[in-house]
């Protein structure tokens, strides 16, 4: 008995698994550490942080950093702009993407290939920044909220070709007889889509809603290019850039952002403000994605392995 046990511990599987678990621990630590460190900094008194030695636990607890973030009217407003663009962009984006995916899932649709190609090509084709800028300018969309919903770039935009393909593949897994019988009962395509396909697609819609929301919430480029001259259209990510650009290279760029400068008296530093905004900007999504994990993993796997 003893010898078999000893042999098992010495055996190849045991050694392999030990190293494997150690490696996974390493991956988890490397992934989480920068984030946990920022979390600790965001709850630590600003001046104390500059002394160094903050790892994953605050030394001098404080909520002042978050107070400062939410008392800054500009950041607070930007938070709500981010929420607005995420909600509006996701609701319209998901519905329209699903509707488009339904049309290209219908094998009898005569323009099926054309519609598919024209969207898939956008994954690689880009007319470029400068022509896009002129288009947005000519359409009088500069410095409007609408540009956040309509401009198709950098993760945002109404339709993502990738999401469209994910939904189409999902629809193909549904039994064809559902659509057929609904049509025979006199349902038009739009009716079939709304009352048969949409409810059945709930899991995949949750997936692309997450992708769209993440894209909308995280993007900054459209604000930077098309709406940077309107302060009340600034988003949370853009506010973070304003702060970051003043602190990213502390040895190269010593000027301190206006928000933090006026607060240095109350022991708040740009670094701690930045940590607090980082948390405000990332926590909403981090609270949601673990619950949708099952769905988005299935959605991505479906899109890749099938076909």
């Amino acid at each position, binding site marked *: 008995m003893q010898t078999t046990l000893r042999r098992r511990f010495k055996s*190849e599987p045991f050694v*392999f*698994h030990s190293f494997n*678990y150690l*490696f*996974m621990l390493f*991956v*988890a630590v*490397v*992934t*989480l*550490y*920068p*984030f946990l*460190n920022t979390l600790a900094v965001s709850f630590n008194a600003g001046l104390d942080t500059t002394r160094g*030695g903050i790892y994953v636990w605050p030394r001098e607890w404080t909520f002042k950093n978050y107070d400062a973030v939410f008392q800054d009217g500009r950041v607070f407003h930007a938070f709500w702009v981010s929420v607005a663009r995420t909600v509006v962009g996701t609701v319209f984006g998901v519905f329209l993407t699903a*509707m*488009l995916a339904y*049309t290209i899932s*219908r094998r009898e649709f*005569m323009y099926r290939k054309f519609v598919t190609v*024209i*969207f898939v090509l*956008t994954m*690689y084709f*880009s*007319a*470029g*920044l*400068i*022509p*896009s*800028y*002129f*288009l947005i300018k000519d359409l009088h969309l500069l410095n409007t909220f609408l540009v956040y919903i309509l401009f198709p770039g950098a993760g945002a*935009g109404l*339709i993502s070709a990738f999401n469209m393909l994910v939904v189409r593949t999902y629809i193909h897994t549904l039994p064809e*007889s559902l659509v*057929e*019988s609904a049509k*025979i009962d006199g349902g*038009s*395509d*739009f009716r079939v*889509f709304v009352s048969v396909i949409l409810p059945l697609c709930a899991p995949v819609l949750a997936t692309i809603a997450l992708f769209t929301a993440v894209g909308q919430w*995280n993007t900054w480029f459209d604000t930077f290019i098309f709406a940077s001259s309107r302060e009340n259209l600034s988003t949370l990510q853009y506010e*973070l*850039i304003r702060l*970051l650009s003043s602190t*990213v290279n502390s*040895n190269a760029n010593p000027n301190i952002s206006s928000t933090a400068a006026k607060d240095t008296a109350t022991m708040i530093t740009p670094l701690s403000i930045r940590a607090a905004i*980082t948390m405000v900007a*990332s926590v909403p*999504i*981090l609270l949601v*994605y673990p619950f949708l994990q099952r769905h988005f993993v299935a959605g*991505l*796997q479906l899109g*890749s*392995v099938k076909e």
Partner: protein
Amino acid sequence: MPQQVVHKAEPSSQPARRTEPYWRKMFRQRQLILMSLPMVIYVVIFAYGPIWGWMMAFQQYKPGFSIFDQKWVGFDQFRFLLMDEGFTRVLRNTIAMSVISLVLGFVTAIGLALLLNEIKKTGIKRIIQTISYLPHFLSWIIVTGLVSMSLSTEGGIVNIVLVKLHLIDEPIVWLSEGKYFWGIVGATNVWKEVGWNTIIYLAAIASVDPSLYEAAEMDGAGRYRKIWNVTLPGIRPVIVILLILNIGWILNGGGFEIQYFLGNGQVLDYSETIDIFVLKYGLRIGNYSLGVAAGIFKTVVSIILLYCANLIAKRLGEERLV
């Protein structure tokens, strides 16, 4: 009963479809057409509409005049671009950072997927996966912020660990030296996306026929032999498809934000990519024509690369995109 209905419907619709005139078919499918038309119009305007502006690349564009009243210069902008030493360097940086990110990204994601696959405890596996997806959901501003904080000389964790391990004597100013920049871009991309990229590989691994493993075991294959001779060949189609997809993005330089946010004057010779070049000429210098020409170059080369990769895969009898 429903079966009967379907059966009855088929013979009547099938022959009709073949002889049906075009416009009648259009009328019959008007719902599908109406459902897709708004989005098609949208994408034509917003994604393809700007092609109109490509005319600028063949002009010496001066702001204030209409696009029709500009001086035409033919391919001069492109000639200037390809002769320009600055642009050659930009091109080198772009391709270098893309290739580094691509190779590192593939190797690490496949490796992590293979190791995750060996973990039989579902609970632990799921926790590791959930953690590994986290950075994918962070915005690039946040990620580059975390990277610059981790690499800082004042309390950055990378320097602290390396000094403690006696691998370096004193902290390195990582972001101020050009020779580290490409590596930092590759590592940042891996950090952000490696977990996310395992999703597809894990699915591919799960779809490998289990009887192949049994057969290999009977031939006396161990863990590593099975990975090398069964798993990796089994997921080859997925690897090829992803490679084709990624080759079309090779002129993206492994992302735009990393270079934009982490690049600085000291590493400019290594950090400037095509996208940043376009931004610089468009926004700061105001030489629209040159910026547009660089953008056209990027798009055209990307499409050609995608097409070639697809063609080669087809020739080699591999899976392909279209």
